[in-house]
């Protein structure tokens, strides 16, 4: 039974590590109501700056910490000043997306500068071990705990008792009122970002030393776990973030003890969703906090959509349909096939995130459900491919909606976080449910596309098929938008309180949006499965969810034509510019940032 002591200690140790990121996140959320997805990237930068200091400059530990804190704080200030402050009066979702874009850019800059190979970050502390339970801990464990606790305590005291701390809290509660009271809101935000960034950078360095390993994958992992911990502890609640982190560590540890290692992340994300559903303000908040009423005059994404005349659309469709008949290489056709498949996902997401306001970050999971359903039906049950794909769409609509439904009661950023977590959960279930999905081995030998017994092997045939399916889905969606449902979805997006007051049940209509969107995404996934002939749990991943979101914003939230144009632009153009392959993700990040800053309504305008 001493093992339970060890599991508890291990849980606390890893929770300790999560706490460092969570505290920074909580601080920023507390001030600007923003989940800073770039926190993990600052953590990463801190780790690499630490490497430079320790390995290249060989500075002693104290100087290393100061250097890392300084550089990180500077980056935090720059992010606040140039990345986020211009978005103050912008649409509600803009800062969230901006931080995602910033995280891409920072991660890529680090990867391009240092190469993606993991490298060692030697600890500069003496290598003594203390026995605890059956295992040992070292000075780094103590230092990390110390810094985590100290920063939580210091921040708590700072926020409660210092003048700047009061200014910070006033700004968080009511920015305009604070400004009227003479608070220099900008200075406050700067201070907070600087502190949170310094903390984040130092954490990255310490954790890098702790594992003696840094690499660019650290960033996303840190952000994900930090967000879970922060939400569990109560967004904006700094001491809560520490406790939430420890709790997360314990849940993971006990989960491993009982079920095994491959379920670890499943527990983290299930914990997150459970907290969001039952206690959205965290485990330590008592009453449900009410969102403030929107002031008259502040609405989301006001814009006039670009009007596309019917003749132009018909012309475009004809041109695209005739394309394979021209002497065009199959490379171009393949690129467009990819674009059409992505466009189906984008159509789905633009309905859900754009028209209905549910900014889902886990949409690729719907592709996965459709793909696996179609693959398994055609392989195991010899269902004809066309029918299997249709079933994939239906399964994605039904199961996808069911799994995402816990997020229906949430609002704002929480929807994004919940859907991100649910997407990860679905991916992990696919990985672990081996009897059905073959687990990590994946499904190979998926029969190729065929319709009514006729195999579609020719690239032009596949091109026409996918083009047709995409156009049909687009037309259906436009019909939906023109109906009372389109009106209803948009009303829920604009103001769900007023929508409810006039008879719109949120659960019903969010479900309908996801059902329709799920169908489109599921069909896309199904087609992809038969095209690729092999899929596994990694084929449809989070990066695609975020790419889909970028496409949807580029095209214009809710804009059907925009979803298609955006797909061609973001899937097609990178192919055309293969020379810039190494910079592709960097370019996506910059595109996202520019869009959010200068044209949040996208190319064709939001609807």
């Amino acid at each position: 039974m001493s093992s339970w002591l060890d599991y508890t200690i291990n849980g606390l140790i890893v929770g300790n590590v999560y706490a460092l990121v969570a505290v920074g996140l909580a601080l920023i959320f507390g001030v600007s109501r923003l989940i800073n997805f770039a926190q993990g990237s600052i953590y990463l930068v801190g780790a690499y700056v630490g490497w430079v200091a320790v390995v290249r400059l060989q500075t002693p530990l104290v100087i290393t910490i100061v250097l890392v804190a300084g550089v990180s704080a500077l980056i935090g200030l720059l992010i606040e000043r140039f990345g986020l402050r211009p978005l103050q009066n912008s649409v509600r979702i803009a800062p969230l997306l901006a931080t995602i874009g910033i995280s891409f850019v920072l991660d890529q800059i680090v990867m391009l500068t240092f190469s993606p190979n993991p490298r060692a970050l030697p600890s500069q502390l003496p290598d003594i071990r203390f026995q605890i339970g059956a295992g040992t801990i070292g000075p780094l464990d103590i230092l990390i705990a110390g810094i985590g606790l100290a920063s939580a305590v210091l921040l708590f005291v700072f926020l409660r008792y210092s003048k700047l701390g009061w200014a910070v809290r006033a700004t968080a509660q009511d920015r305009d009122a604070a400004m009227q009271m003479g608070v220099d809101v900008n200075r406050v935000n700067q201070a907070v970002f600087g502190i949170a960034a310094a903390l984040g950078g130092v954490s990255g360095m310490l954790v890098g030393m702790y594992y003696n390993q840094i690499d660019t994958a650290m960033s996303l992992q840190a952000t994900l776990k930090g967000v879970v911990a922060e939400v569990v502890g109560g967004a904006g609640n700094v001491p809560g973030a520490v406790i939430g982190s420890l709790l997360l560590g314990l849940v993971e540890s006990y989960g491993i003890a009982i079920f095994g290692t491959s379920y670890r992340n499943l527990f983290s994300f299930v914990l997150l969703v459970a907290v969001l559903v039952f206690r959205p303000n965290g485990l330590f908040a008592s009453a449900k906090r009410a969102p403030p009423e929107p002031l008259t005059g502040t609405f989301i994404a006001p814009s006039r959509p670009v009007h596309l005349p019917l003749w132009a659309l018909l012309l475009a469709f004809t041109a695209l349909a005739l394309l394979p008949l021209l002497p065009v290489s199959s490379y171009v056709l393949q690129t467009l096939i990819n674009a059409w498949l992505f466009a189906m996902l984008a159509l789905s997401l633009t309905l859900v995130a754009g028209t209905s306001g549910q900014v889902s970050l886990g949409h690729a999971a719907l592709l996965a459900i459709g793909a696996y359903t179609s693959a398994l039906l055609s392989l195991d049950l010899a269902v004809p491919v066309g029918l299997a794909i249709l079933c994939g769409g239906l399964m994605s609509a039904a199961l996808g909606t069911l799994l995402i439904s816990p997020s229906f009661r949430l609002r704002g950023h929480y929807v994004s976080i919940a859907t991100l977590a649910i997407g990860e959960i679905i991916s992990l279930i696919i990985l672990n449910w081996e009897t059905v999905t073959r687990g990590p081995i994946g499904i190979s030998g998926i029969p190729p596309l065929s319709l009514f017994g006729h195999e579609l092997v020719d690239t032009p045939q596949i091109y026409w098929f996918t083009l047709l399916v995409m156009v049909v889905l687009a037309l259906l969606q436009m019909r939906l938008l023109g109906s009372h449902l389109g009106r209803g979805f948009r009303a829920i997006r604009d103001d769900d309180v007023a929508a409810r007051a006039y008879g719109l049940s949120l659960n019903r209509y969010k479900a309908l949006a996801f059902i329709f969107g799920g169908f489109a995404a599921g069909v896309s996934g199904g087609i992809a499965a038969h095209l690729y002939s092999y899929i596994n749990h990694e084929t449809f991943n989070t990066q695609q969810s975020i790419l889909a979101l970028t496409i949807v914003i580029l095209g214009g939230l809710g804009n059907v034509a925009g979803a298609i144009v955006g797909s061609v632009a973001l899937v097609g153009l990178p192919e055309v510019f293969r020379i810039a392959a190494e910079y592709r993700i960097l370019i996506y990040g910059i595109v996202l940032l520019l869009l959010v800053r200068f044209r949040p309504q996208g190319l064709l305008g939001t609807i």
Partner: protein
Amino acid sequence: MSNVSRRTLVKASLASIVVGAAMSRATFAQSSEPILLGVSGPLTGPNAQYGAQWKQGFDLALDEIRAAGGINGRKLAYTFEDSQSDPRQSVAIAQKFVSDPRIVMELGDFSSPASMAASPIYQRAGLVQFGFTNSHPDFTKGGDFMWSTSVSQADEQPLLASYAVSHLGLKRLAVLHLNSDWGRTSRDYFVNAAKELGAETVITEGYIPDERDFRSTLVRVRDANPDGLILISYYSDGALIARQARQVGLKQTICASSSVYSPKFLELGGEAVENVHLGTRYFPDDPRPEVQKFVAGFKAKFNGQEPDAFNAYSYDAMNVAAAVVKIGGTDRRAIRDAFSKVRDVSTVIFGPATFDVATRRVKGGMNAELVVRKGQFVLWDGKQPT
């Protein structure tokens, strides 16, 4: 469509048409043109480090080939397209390669999903897809244009089992493995092989690639009472596990598969990897001349850096490709046929390599049993662990 986007699409289409046309005009009658291989692999994204290592191996092999006069007087070259190991992109790259008549063979991709997604395209178009690190057992079943020199786990794991069970005398094994297609297949082969040798696998734990914290996993392992830990990992996770195993109080012998073999394993693992045993297909102190040539050449070209297994795989792949092209010329079908004709190509991993036509793979693989002593990989001296 609005003016902007329609223009963009038309421009993009026109650009591609022009490029495509230009490419089809090139002919191989010009023997001054290099013979081109297409490489599909990760230059960016999560697996970018492997793409970088591939390039090192390729470039070294090409230097040597060039120094030896090229292929029948012509240079051999490759064009590397970044797939990010993403099936979407590998499929597009496949289309690109098959429509480029200069390309006589494709190498890659890094991961199985990316490789296998593109197989139908290569098979239909009749361009050899030559994989050398994708390890999914079904890869070569994609068609007769799919060939591979990646060491089959069916060959590799029994060697590891023999090291751990027969030589090191371990009887109760705890297997920690990466929960990927490669990791799972390997684990299954290992467990079977160990069983045949009379050892029992008391626990297996699969973890995902980004995992950092293994402490609780190791407590679970500890409670199963093994006398040895088997790691089916890459060097970064292997190093993490080794470090944390000591921190959790596990003193059992650690025996790892060849996938941890890399100088980085030592760098990241530090003292914790001392006395870790591992089998490997490639070992720099292997006296075989082809190995020594490889190591010396690599160090000379890359500033004294020692090559690791992925460098060896790509170096071998390029050499095999060169041998195939020497026999098959530049016709794609002939190249496919040449794979079954090459005999005893000199490779680091296999020694003399010949393809088994039935499986389109190379059987066997060198085996060196190593151990880490004083921060270096050395041949195991036969000393039993305490």
